[in-house]
């Protein structure tokens, strides 16, 4: 009279050996958590765009389950639909059953990278991305022709040429932020003492993309933390935390970077390891889980992850100390997916912004929907990313903000690209920095 509605997993028979290899396949118990209720559909960006079951979290989990039961192969449609996921984790927020889609995706993507050969063009493009982005020095070198190019682009013939670039390259080209050569090569002080009585000591991850293209955000972060009473250490020699690779399923290089980052930070006499990048924070908080099976690193990784904080978490922890000058205007806060959905840090950035007198904080409609940046997504799937970017920009305009703030460089680039230049786009700490220093808010 009734049949199970409780579990998709237990209903599917095991008809053959799992299509996943033995290295951390998606756990059957995690797959079984999905009850197929569909509450995730409205918040999934790809389901919103295409309305196809296979491109929804429920559908993807179903396909994972089929692969795990040996019913379907990993290559072909399976890989396509997993690739199409932005990894925004809005579904994790929406799920009433507590399905850990983040964990599932994290184990499935490396399976694809290991076991499914990519087409030569796709493979080359991905290789190029990962040969550039995680390396600060290479990014800086790239920033030079980038800055030159941006001047050249003002010449009509050059911009006409740019408009003829094929899809993925065009997407990369149009995302290129305004490059300041001076910023790209500037460093941060290794040690910045707290202003007044010291509250604590933190070590800052300066990041790769962040430090080259958004160096001003790092500068503002150091100033704000110091003004609020924290000694700020910025370890020299630190490198990319591995977030971009981790979220794209390139597990081995990501783990190497994770270990290196742990080694760079763990010896520091700091209470917290702070990042101002949502994507980095979410991966650094995952190190403990990622390295749990590695006896040499499990304990160190867990200890490291326990100390990772997003900068807003630190700032919202105590009462504001530095006096704030009023900043009058409507400020729209965009929840970066890796901060809101992945780290569940939503209240803290808002609390930080509310500590600025004069700020009228507004939320965006469809706030849970990804802007389409999603790590490298807007480079590998430019069409879908562009649709989401345009939709986000429209939602931003609908609340007529004077300034929009968000805590992830990817979102800043993506929203900036679709919003145009009329509304300043900043990291929240830049706004707070301007308020503390009593200077006008920067335009970028």
């Amino acid at each position, binding site marked *: 009279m009734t049949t199970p509605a409780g579990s998709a997993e237990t209903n599917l028979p095991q008809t053959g050996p799992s299509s996943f290899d033995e290295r951390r396949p998606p756990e059957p118990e995690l797959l079984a958590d999905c*009850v197929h209720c*569909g509450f995730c559909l409205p918040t999934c960006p790809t389901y919103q765009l295409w309305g196809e079951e296979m491109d929804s979290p429920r559908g993807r989990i179903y396909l994972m389950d089929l692969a795990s039961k040996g019913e379907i192969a990993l290559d072909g449609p399976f890989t396509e639909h997993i690739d199409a996921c932005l990894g925004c984790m809005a579904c994790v927020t929406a799920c009433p059953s507590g399905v850990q889609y983040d964990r599932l995706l994290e184990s499935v993507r490396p399976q694809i990278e290991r076991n499914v050969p990519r087409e030569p063009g796709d493979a080359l493009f991905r290789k190029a991305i990962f040969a550039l982005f995680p390396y600060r020095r290479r990014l800086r070198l790239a920033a030079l022709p980038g800055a030159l190019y941006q001047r050249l682009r003002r010449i009509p013939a050059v911009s006409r040429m740019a408009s003829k670039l094929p899809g993925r390259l065009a997407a990369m080209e149009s995302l290129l932020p305004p490059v300041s050569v001076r910023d790209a090569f500037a460093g941060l002080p290794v040690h910045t003492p707290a202003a007044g009585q010291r509250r604590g000591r933190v070590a800052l991850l300066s990041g790769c993309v962040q430090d080259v293209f958004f160096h001003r955000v790092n500068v503002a972060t150091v100033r704000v933390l110091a003004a609020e009473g924290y000694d700020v250490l910025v370890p020299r020699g630190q490198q990319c935390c591995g977030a971009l690779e981790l979220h794209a399923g390139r597990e081995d290089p990501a783990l190497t970077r994770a270990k290196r980052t742990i080694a760079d930070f763990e010896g520091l006499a700091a209470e917290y390891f702070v990042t101002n990048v949502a994507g980095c924070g979410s991966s650094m908080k995952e190190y403990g889980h990622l390295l749990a099976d590695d006896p040499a690193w499990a304990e160190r990784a867990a200890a490291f992850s326990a100390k990772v904080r997003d900068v807003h978490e630190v700032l919202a922890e105590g009462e504001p100390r530095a006096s704030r000058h009023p900043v009058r205007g409507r400020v729209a806060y965009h929840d970066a997916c890796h901060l809101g959905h992945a780290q569940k840090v939503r209240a803290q950035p808002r609390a930080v912004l509310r500590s600025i007198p004069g700020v009228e904080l507004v939320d965006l409609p469809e706030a849970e929907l990804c802007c389409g940046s999603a790590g490298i997504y807007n480079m590998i799937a430019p069409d879908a990313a562009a649709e989401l970017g345009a939709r986000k920009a429209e939602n931003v305009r609908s609340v007529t903000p004077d300034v929009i703030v968000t805590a992830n460089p990817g979102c800043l680039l993506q929203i900036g690209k679709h919003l145009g230049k009329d509304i300043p786009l900043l990291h929240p700490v830049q706004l707070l920095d301007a308020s503390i220093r009593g200077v006008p808010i920067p335009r970028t």
Partner: protein
Amino acid sequence: MGLSYAVRREFEYTLSPQDVISDPVRCRAYECDGLTGYRVIPDLVLLPRTAEQVASAVRVCAEHGIPFVARGAGTGLSGGALPVADGVVISLARLKRVLEVDPVNRRAVVEPGVTNLEITKAAAPHGLYYAPDPSSQQVCTIGGNVAENSGGAHCLKYGFTTNHVLSVEVVLADGSVVTLGSDTGEQLGPDLRGTFLGSEGTLGITTKITVRLLRTPESVRTLLADFPSIAAAGDVVSDVVAAGIVPAAVEMMDTLAIEAAEEAVHAGYTVGVPAALVVELDGPTEECDVQFEQVKQICERHGCTRLHIAGSPEERAAIWRGRKAAFAAVGRISPDYFVQDGVVPRTRLAEVLDRIAGMGADAGLRVANVFHAGDGNLHPLVLYSAAAGETERAEKLSGEIAELCVEMGGSLSGEHGIGTDKACSMPKMFTEDDLAVMRRVRGAFDPRGLCNPGKVLPTPRLCGERPGKYKPHPLEESGVIERL
């Protein structure tokens, strides 16, 4: 087996190649809806973008005699969107435009793939909303609501989907397009709109729906009350209704459901209490305030152990989030569970719940209860572990609970529908004559049975009647007919 290449090309030509899914792996994502126990892989999935494309696709089906199943968000709990072998699924997910909001006449015209909650969001700027609110309202589509005549917590006061749909544009099984009902709510002749509402996709596919909008109530008051027993909470429900109060909603949850919901959304439910009631009143402020006092007194009279009054819209939303997530949240406290849906007369609520508890204890299984207490619509959730080999026992218990509802003078289903799941139980509630009339109505709309076949009405093949030993028919015995 399977549809021919030529037929597939015809669909691709009618829609566009991107709107036809034929790859078997992709099609498997459509093999079941919210009820995963039944699975059939469709041959093709069609994703039309316009009402005209839906009609064209159905015409191709009609021409070749291909059975088709409409699907919205696939959240149904009775297997109503289960595909048919060698048939096609027509997904309405891409028809999701709100075509018109008419605040003066308080109507909205929407496409079937619009979610229930989207209608309210579109109407909200005008101070209006769409009343029926299934727990899955953020995801379930209005097309599916029309098919299932969906209910929801607030249907106690405001009625079901059928009370809020003025007219529907329908693609019939032959591909013709008709409008049933009218925007004024008046119509000539038989109530075909009423016939269509709740027909579970067996009479046609809706492509446009005109819904009634209500004014957002001036005042809404919500309370959450804990009780020392289910019986006490049940008595509160009876007394509230007896006092002449028509609450907007009265919802009850038991210990297990409370535990699951609280774990999922942290809404402030008291974990460990035997029963909790959510009572909501809405309307003019004065009326609301007076009746709210009465409800509070009734709660206290029946030994309410804690009374929490939502002090802000956020608190109210949190209480409802807990209630509406309860089904799915049960996944947190049990590896597997059956969702049951039945109706009993409100006056027998406490008695039925007592019997259910006894039956659960006898079977050695836990039963969580979360239901629309105001109209006696129960949703017992039978918790079990398939890994521990409890499936059969649980299935039996869940079936017995539904039968108990019929025995108590209630109904097989309150709002989840009959679908695939309960088609074979229909004879428990209806006589052969009743079912014959239903079949004739269905035949009048869809003589060839192409539209969502195998749902609602029992068929011998569906209900497990196997060809067995020859038994002479009574008419054969009496010599009226002969078998050749």
